[in-house]
């Protein structure tokens, strides 16, 4: 195994997370350059030899130009593959198209499966992601997928930043009940659920609260915040039910569309997202946003993966 070391690669945009991981690992980011055609075609060049190296490509996929990021990632993977890398691990904390994971209507595309096929086709040997919308997506892949959890980081955040003896964990929909219940168990807190009837994607129709939130600090927990319409509506319902205050903790703060307006105009005290999605620019526009840094989890998983150690420790514990 001589000369087999970690190489970290990141595209030239949204390098924030990659730089944090790099700092934690003490491994500098490999020089690389993405070349963009005026028509949008992408080419890629690596500035040093990666032959027989252990490659980790860290990409943050936010809102907007998702397809550009996806093609960039695929081309980076393929470039590493053709440059004779030993193993290529794609680190995609916010897995794109994760919500297109089933045929919910006739002839609807299962784009998450397509993404999985494309990643394996490009030459990806391993995928690390975080809080997949549906953990069954791991089964779409022919290569190992490590689905990390933001939960230990969230637990730490709540313990350090919220008076959590007065808190209650809220799931904004029935689908997230398991995630919220798990967190409530970890913190030994009560748990309530908002039942919602969704008319169309990104639109909320009717919400019913199940459980008692009187005088509590409500912590809404979800895996993804998109336009934040659901969160704003949920906050209203919770306050109508005599909650003390409402904060929301989501893993992937995509914050697309008029999310910032929705948050600013909502009754939410705070919206906390992990840095799986780049939203530094939005923090300036919205004072209610806060960040949980998950680079430690990623860095530790990279280290463990490279050394062939178990990753399951990270599912329950926050690395020091």
């Amino acid at each position: 195994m001589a000369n087999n070391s970690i190489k970290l690669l990141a595209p030239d945009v949204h390098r924030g997370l990659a730089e944090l991981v790099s700092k934690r690992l003490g491994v500098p980011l490999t020089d690389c350059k993405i070349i963009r055609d005026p028509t949008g075609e992408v080419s890629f060049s690596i500035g040093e030899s990666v032959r027989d190296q252990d490659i980790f490509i860290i990409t943050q996929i936010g809102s907007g130009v998702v397809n550009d990021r996806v093609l960039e990632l695929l081309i980076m993977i393929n470039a590493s593959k053709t440059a004779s890398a030993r193993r290529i691990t794609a680190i995609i904390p916010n897995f794109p198209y994760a919500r297109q994971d089933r045929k919910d209507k006739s002839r609807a595309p299962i784009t998450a499966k397509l993404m999985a096929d494309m990643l394996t086709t490009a030459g990806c040997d391993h995928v690390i992601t975080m809080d997949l919308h549906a953990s069954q997506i791991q089964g779409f892949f022919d290569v190992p997928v490590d689905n990390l959890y933001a939960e230990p980081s969230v637990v730490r955040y709540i313990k350090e930043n919220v008076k959590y003896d007065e808190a209650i964990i809220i799931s904004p929909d029935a689908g997230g009940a398991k995630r919220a219940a798990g967190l409530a168990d970890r913190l030994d807190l009560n748990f309530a659920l908002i039942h919602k009837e969704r008319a169309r994607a990104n639109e909320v129709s009717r919400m019913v609260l199940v459980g008692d939130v009187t005088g509590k600090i409500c912590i809404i927990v979800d895996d993804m915040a998109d336009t934040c319409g659901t969160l704003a509506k949920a906050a209203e319902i919770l306050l109508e039910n005599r909650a003390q205050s409402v904060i929301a903790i989501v893993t992937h703060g995509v914050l697309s569309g008029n999310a910032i307006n929705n948050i600013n105009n909502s009754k939410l005290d705070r919206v906390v997202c992990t840095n799986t999605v780049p939203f530094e620019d939005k923090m300036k526009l919205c004072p209610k946003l806060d960040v949980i840094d998950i680079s430690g989890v990623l860095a530790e998983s990279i280290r463990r993966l490279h050394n062939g150690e178990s990753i399951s420790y990270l599912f329950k514990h926050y690395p020091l």
Partner: protein
Amino acid sequence: MSNNLVIFGGDSHPKLVAQICAQLDVQPSKVELGKFSNGETSIAVKSSVREKDVYVIQSGCGHVNDTFMQLLILISACKSASASRVTAVIPYFCYSRQPDIPYTAKGAPIISQRKSSGSASASTPAATPTAGGKTVTTTQRPGADSPFKSLDSAIRSTIQSPTPVRPPPTTVGSSRIPMIPEGGKLNRSGGQQTPQPPSSTSAEAEELFNAQNAGYKLWVVQAGTLIANLLTAAGADHVITMDLHDRQFPGFFDVPVDNLYCKPLVQNYIHHCIPGYRDAVVVSPDAGGAKRATAVADALELSFAMIHKERRSQLLKGPPDATLTSGADIPSKPLLQHNPPPAGAPALHRSGSSSSVSSASSSKFVQTTMIVGDVRGKTCILVDDLVDTSYTITRAAVLLKDQGATAVYAIATHGVFSGDALERIKRSPIDKIVVSNTIPQERTLAVLGKHRVDILDVSRVFGEAIRRIHNGESISMLFEYGW
């Protein structure tokens, strides 16, 4: 037409989809194309495709990555909805070219930001900076401190500082001595100077980085295989495209690829729309396209000429140990002797040449352009497969007019026209530009006006190819005669 055929169009080129469907006398099937609020592509196929023969038409234009992902998702949706066969119809195939990256003399790519300014002139060639490895002496470790940062400006600053430049060899006379660029970018103070090290250390590091890594440590990805595999992974069973830049490209696929040709349409256009075409000359704007152009010339029995572009590194010229001096004595006017062709000379001779030098940022590269073949007093027809930045054809047109061509037509299959390509063509001496509608050309018509643009309609070729492939007939006659 059998009711087994289903055609879907992506949103990149709806007009061509409508035209192809009109040729086939079918209606395009309904599909809802859109985006989720987070930027992910959403697709809803609105009619049944079970056991159908599905054709998905999407050109690689517009925002390439979005249209390509849309194509993949649409193919995947049809495949998972039990279509019996899914054929991707990609009139212009994106990612089929190698990116246009300047290379050093040793073959390593120089990675730099694409310049947005300084491209105004019709004859400005692409900047081609090169590594001045020999002249730089520095102890800085190569590759230290992120050498890609602002590489381009760093190179430029190196050039503006008194960079040692080799003087032209004393024996000027033969016709291919390259020219050192004129203009104020070089130190013209005169006299022999001892070489001064470039002032900017970051530039030193970067030059050294490129020099020491030349041809060895930098890779530029070739996306071709990846794109082919992605299409196969999405579920495409067959690919139809037109005039691929690389003839080898179909080999990247595991499924059959039908590469249609625009050539019959081009021949037809020349035959019917170019007055006095029998005396015209087919000109290839570069050596790479010579085969394509000769095929057209042969079919129409026209004579042929070629523009040859030579790019030579100054560093490779001259005696190996010559002292480096500043570019003081460099002639500012061309260097190439014009040898007027003797009367009755054979058709293929070097009838003219001109040298253009790359813009200021590429002092160490010298470009010589020459025409092989006689164009004086003739109509010239430039034939190429693709016009993107339009530098090649506008430069060729200038050269042809300089050499006495009476009219210049430029015919290309794919008119990508990125950046300010259309403005450059507008200013160029090209009399008429002819492109096919594999890519929407509304903007071309708007900028250049109807009298300077002709559009070749490829929908008949694609329509007939789809009909024949659907019916299991041979399509080889389309290669020869068009439709």
